[in-house]
């Protein structure tokens, strides 16, 4: 719809601009605060003209919170989660859309229902499983009397134990399953013309071949979109890393930010905290900027 309405245009731009200011203003304030010294940042009201200590504050924040290794940890975790989600959900959706087997819809809906069970809801059982991945199997063996039987026969006491606390796997694996991703892929796969599948069959390609050669290249926009969103989501995870990383060597950048927040009775060093926040914000921003072109295409248009 193309209309020539100068007044309406003016108002729509006004609304757009207001929204822009609303979104960007907090970041501008953070950036300005990060450039002040201890005295200026605590002035009321704080001066909105940038100060001169920006790089000094950034450096202080970096060394105080030891952000280097933390950013690395965060990156490993966010990248692992995003990549895991992209792969697992592609496979799940492929199975659901392209294969006919009993219970297919049931499985789809079970996956769908997990949308209503975010990590926060199932945090206790999830923690228990990560603390000892084999615990459920131990329980099954105990319940069925299998461990008793094994002990009777071989004299070995069955004690399965595999802990993932304080490890990258423990950080990543519980976050990899995703209903959103499965759903996104499913919707995309449904738009792929049946004739393409049939042409691949006529060309002699088996299911896996079709998936790798045809479906995956076609869904690269989808993968980029999902990967970006999930990278950001994983980067911003707070509760889960806080819970399972007791060891400083596996701490995440986002959780370690709290070290920079002034304690009660300590010096109100908000300029350092703001500088740290800025540093932690940079990697996801780079990802968004790099992926933006694909990302938008993947969410909006189906390529025809």
């Amino acid at each position, binding site marked *: 719809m193309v209309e020539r309405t100068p007044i309406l245009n003016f108002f729509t731009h006004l609304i757009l601009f207001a929204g822009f200011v609303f979104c960007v203003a907090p970041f501008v304030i953070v950036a300005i605060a990060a450039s002040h010294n201890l005295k200026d940042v605590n002035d009321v009201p704080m001066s909105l003209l940038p100060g001169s200590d920006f790089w000094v504050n950034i450096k202080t924040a970096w060394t105080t919170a030891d952000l280097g290794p933390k950013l690395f940890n965060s990156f490993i975790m966010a990248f692992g989660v995003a990549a895991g989600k992209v792969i697992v959900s592609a496979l799940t959706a492929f199975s659901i859309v392209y294969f006919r087997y009993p219970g297919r819809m049931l499985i789809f809906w079970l996956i769908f229902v997990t949308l209503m069970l975010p990590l926060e809801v199932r945090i206790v059982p999830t923690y228990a499983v990560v603390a000892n991945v084999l615990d459920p199997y131990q329980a099954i063996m105990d319940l069925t009397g299998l461990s008793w039987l094994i002990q009777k026969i071989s004299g070995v006491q069955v004690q399965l134990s595999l802990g993932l606390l304080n490890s990258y796997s423990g950080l990543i694996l519980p976050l990899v399953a995703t209903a959103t991703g499965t759903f996104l892929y499913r919707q995309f796969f449904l738009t792929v013309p049946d004739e393409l599948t049939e*042409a691949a069959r*006529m*060309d002699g390609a088996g299911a896996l071949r079709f998936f790798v*050669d*045809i479906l995956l290249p076609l869904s690269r926009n989808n993968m980029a979109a999902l990967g970006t969103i999930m990278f950001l989501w994983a980067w911003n995870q707070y509760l889960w890393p806080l819970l399972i990383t007791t060891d400083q060597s596996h701490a995440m950048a986002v959780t370690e930010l709290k070290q920079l927040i002034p304690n009660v009775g300590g010096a109100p060093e908000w300029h350092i905290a703001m500088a740290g926040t800025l540093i932690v914000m940079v990697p996801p921003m780079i990802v968004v900027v790099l992926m933006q072109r694909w990302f938008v295409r993947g969410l909006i248009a189906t390529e025809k």
Partner: protein
Amino acid sequence: MASITIRGVKKNYAKTQVVHGVDLDFASGEFVVILGPSGCGKSTLLRMIAGLEEISDGTIAIDGTVVNKLEPRERGCAMVFQNYALYPHMSVAQNIGYSLKVAGVPAAERAERVQAVARVLELEHLLDRKPMALSGGQRQRVAMGRAMIREPKVFLFDEPLSNLDAKLRVQMRSEIRKLHRRLNATSVFVTHDQVEAMTLADRLVVMNGGRVEQVGTPAEVYSRPASRFVATFVGAPAMNMLEGTVTLDGLSLLGDSRKLNVSRTGLAVGAKVAVGIRPEAVRMVAPGTPGALEASVDLIEELGAGRVIYVDLDGAPFSIVTSETVHPEPGSTVGLQFAEADLHFFSSETGGRLDVFKATVPEPAL
């Protein structure tokens, strides 16, 4: 090269049966066209031959081997789809060579064979392009190249020309025909377009409602349609049909309003029949000519080389194709005359052909 034998093939979707027991034999190297209206089961039949659709009952054999349980790739068929079904992310060369890649043919040999196919189809300058950057006709040629490169025993075409514009369609039609002459592989071509069917087919299979109505050369199907359906479906404008009853001295048509003097060999008095006459077999004569039916002119369609004249025969629509330069005024009365040999009789109940006359079948004009 391979023959195809289809025996009692049926197809059910849940409870609906869409193909009701088809028996057909396609000889090796033959170009067979399956013609029928949409929903007649022609595409389903083709897809069952290809292996894309399960066969509910009966058998399909290619070269004597029953293929019911074989995967598409094991049947030696190649298929050209209606929407081309090219892989959008692959270049033309990759599209054509994909089946070889899957089969594990080394890259050098693959490139060579792609080149050879591209030369035949005049696609050499387009090999690096993506399908998106091609015109409809070019895409169609790529789709054919993809089928050709495997050197299949059987070519299957599923309405491959229906997405092209009229001019391109005529051009591709003759290209497919030439290609067939060159490769001489057994080809099965499905279409709802009768001109396509008539021009391409060595043999024509007319289907309706999941059944085969007639099998024959295009000339046979045109000149001796086996049923009322075939008679009205093949030929444009469609064959005129008049309901009538056999009387002592001929036929009474249209609820006794008209009489037709014909010898009535083999038909019982009182039998209900439908009389068919091709528009191009009707001659216009002056009204009042003895033995002619009188009708009033409704509409004239000028075709350049000839014209179609639509007349009204007591409420029944009737058309005449003539190349004579006559221009009767709409509303005027004309006389219609035709030879007995040009009449086709069909049973009113079953729709089957009633052979009243020993009609002669002209030699297939090829």
